[in-house]
């Protein structure tokens, strides 16, 4: 069964994607940047505006659809992935974007999250990870680090956080990436890559909640230190980072560590791990950098492989069934099996 490929009839602009609703996030919230980048990238994706749907759950981030002048659905808490699944299966022509928070998709929505990934339905997920529940005013979330003091954990949280890329990989994800609210260019690139990937694209976005969790990602965004703390992944390239691009990731056995590749050191670029988006093991290793003091935080595409896509197979089955049994004929179906006539 063929999909309908439609293209826009005119060049779209950012304004085409801006709705008439006042944006109601706190001034300075990281969500604004994501909105801006999405509105910047979408016009250029070659998709008619009416084919975009933004689907969200509940949370600050989940107000997103109201601000986009596309079709939009503001769901209930945690269920955006399941709603999007029904939409995509119902109409595979749509370009569906799930907008969700760390609470929405990893706490109450954790189950739909992992099932969406394993089904590999061709939708895009933007997970706004601010490591806090914003909308309910500041409780710790499943991505808050152990010991986090919040209103609901006055003596500190007791549970190990999820590591979203690791969880996604464990759930059989075919595309895993990360970006940061304060890096608009990189974010745009990641949004574009998400779109290009056929299958579920999972993009984690580090997003600062300046009201309830300000500075959570400061070490990855402060000009002074960010280059020493962030590892920008590039496919086929050795893993180099640092202000002077003098550090890199070396794999000793299975253990990743940071080495200096300064001019006089013992290490050179050749000792570094080369990123391979198609390598599940490398992606797994990278996913474990999160929350570790001794390793930089990777951003970029961790993993991207082609796997069968649920709705492609579904359409195939429909097609095959038609070939096998003929296009459904209700009269025939109802009159099949043992029948008899009473006069």
């Amino acid at each position, binding site marked *: 069964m063929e999909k309908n490929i439609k293209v826009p009839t005119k060049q779209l602009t950012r304004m085409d994607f801006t709705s008439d609703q006042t944006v109601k996030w706190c001034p300075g919230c990281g969500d604004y940047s994501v909105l801006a980048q999405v509105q910047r990238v979408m016009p250029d994706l070659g998709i008619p505006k009416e084919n975009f749907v933004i689907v969200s759950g509940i949370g600050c981030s989940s107000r997103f659809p109201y601000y986009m*002048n596309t*079709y939009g659905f503001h769901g209930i808490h945690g269920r955006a992935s*399941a709603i999007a699944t029904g939409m995509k299966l119902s109409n595979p022509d749509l370009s569906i974007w799930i907008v969700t928070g760390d609470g929405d998709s990893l706490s109450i929505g954790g189950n739909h999250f992992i099932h969406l990934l394993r089904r590999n339905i061709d939708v895009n997920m933007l997970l706004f990870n601010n490591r806090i529940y914003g909308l309910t005013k500041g409780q710790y979330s499943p991505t808050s680090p152990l010991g986090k003091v919040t209103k609901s954990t006055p003596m500190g949280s007791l549970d190990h956080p999820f590591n979203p890329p690791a969880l996604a990989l464990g759930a059989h994800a075919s595309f895993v990436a990360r970006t940061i609210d304060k890096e608009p260019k990189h974010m745009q690139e990641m949004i574009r890559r998400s779109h290009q990937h056929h299958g579920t694209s999972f993009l984690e976005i580090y997003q600062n909640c300046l009201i309830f969790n300000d500075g959570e990602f400061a070490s990855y965004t402060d000009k002074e230190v960010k280059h020493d703390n962030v590892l920008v992944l590039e496919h086929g390239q050795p893993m180099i980072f640092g202000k002077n691009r003098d550090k890199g990731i070396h794999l000793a056995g299975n253990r990743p560590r940071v080495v200096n590749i300064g001019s006089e050191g013992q290490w050179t670029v050749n000792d570094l791990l080369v990123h391979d988006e198609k390598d599940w093991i490398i992606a797994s290793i990278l996913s474990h950098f999160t929350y570790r003091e001794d390793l930089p935080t990777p951003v970029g595409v961790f993993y991207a492989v082609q796997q069968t896509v649920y709705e492609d197979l579904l359409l195939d089955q429909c097609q*095959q069934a038609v070939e*096998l049994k003929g296009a459904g004929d209700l009269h025939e179906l109802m009159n099949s099996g*043992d029948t008899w006539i009473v006069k």
Partner: protein
Amino acid sequence: MAKKLKHIDDVTIRFAGDSGDGMQLTGDRFTSATAIIGNDLSTLPDFPAEIRAPAGSLSGVSAFQLHFSSHEIFSPGDNPDVLIAMNPAALKVHFDELARGGTIIINTASFTPKNLKLAKYDTNPLEDDTLKDFVVYPIDMSRLVKYVCEDMNISPKMVERTKNMFALGVLYWMFNRPMDTTIKWLKEKFAKKPEIVEANTRALNAGFNYGSTARIFTTNYKVNAAKLRPGTYRNISGNYATSLGLLAAAVKSGLPLFYGSYPITPATDILHYLAEFRNFRVKTFQAEDEIAGVTSAIGAAFAGSLAATGTSGPGLALKGEALGLAVITELPLVIVNVQRGGPSTGLPTKTEQADLFQAIYGRNGEAPIPVISARSPGDCFYAAFEAAQVALKYMTPVILLTDGYVGNGSEPWIIPNIDELPEIKPNFFKPGDGREYLPYGRDEESLSREWAVPGTPGLEHRIGGLEKEDGSGAVSNDPDNHHKMVTLRAQKIANVVNDVTPCRVIGEQSGEVLMLSWGSTRGAARAALQKLLKEGKSVSHLNLRWINPLPADLGEILGRFKKILIPEINLGQLAQIIRARYLIEPYQLNLVRGRPFLTSDIINAVDKLIG
């Protein structure tokens, strides 16, 4: 010895055996053969919650009851005239309900000391006087099938398994049923295993021949075709009829059908059936849980499908929050709830009518949803179709209540003519003449909002679970707007009454007692009515289809009767609704036993009222 052929009108038989004995299948085959003869019939499968409880145990007994007749019937019958007991446990469990003087066909091979003990028989009932008031046919079926398959190269286990076909053959002889459909069915079902076809066919024939030659059988029976409405018939189960009803609504509305569901007894078969309709481009989605089942359906509805989800009680409980979302986004959606015994996991394989409250009230806030019920297996088709009609016309979720009895039970069904089913026009926004699309603009009469589907240029809009401004659908916190919207939503659902067919009272249109039933209790109530009317009692019967909203003329009708009797398989949920609505005091008959009412339960209750 020449055998006698006796004409009779009406028979109830029950097949009972171990879970592994194939009783459901045997019942199904007998049902098919009976349907084709043209008898009216009604069935009641009854199986344990375990897949295969310990062989020979009381809890492992699986049964299938079938009532057939040369006149119109409404229920699977109270006390079977014939019991087929494949082992001691089956005899023990079902013996009490057998009509006194009835017939028992027994597979004696299974009456071993071990099985007797498992069935908690101290002495062998075949040898003491337990069965003295019955006509008993003890047959060593296991030995007989071994004998007929002797020259075949198949395992003893396989041979033993054919004994249900032997029993079926005996019954076919006894009630003069044709065997060809069964043989044809065997051939299709085991197309790849000819030796199984052969063994089973031999066993079937052997049973038939045994009946016709063995000295113990002196009489067989003929039950003439019933005078049914003319038409082409098939036998249909409720769950299959529901599936066809949804499919028909999709075809008639020109919408693709989406069904998101998580397996749960006794609703799972709907998923199984719909999954076979891929050539209709039906998209079934086995979700990770009930919440994903309903929310995926909501997504599909937003995207323009005829969306449905199906479940049973515990699953409906999980869908409550999402149904509120469907209410406030005003999207069309059919929720099928095949009720089973509760509360909680309760009695998963048994029937009940105790989810009525949950269907009407089980959500946060003021979240009204129309509720329709199906009265019989075949009626599930029409109820599902009607649920979809209302969902699409009023842009609302609609809950269809069926139950384990109606869902698994079956009856002969006139196949409707597709062309005569009404077209369904979804309430799509029609652009043109410069009309602006208002997501929450409303049809003045029905109050339905218009549907605009992603992919349509120019109708981009956003909806969701927050309260919205009348008309524009923009998020609104305005107090008066909220009151208005709450009221509008309630009024819209109240308006569905305009599509609810007026009540049909069977019997006198006024009088002493009106039996007011809903859903599947209609069967026992109608059967009771038949008998009571024959006895000259002043009784009438009304079965409710829509419970929310209630039909417009119901109040007036209730007023015409001195006493209202409401039989329900719950503690009085409809009764409570009737009390609240009409401020009358109905009599209640509530038996919550995991099974449909017996006709006699209802007759007794009416008799008590009439005094």
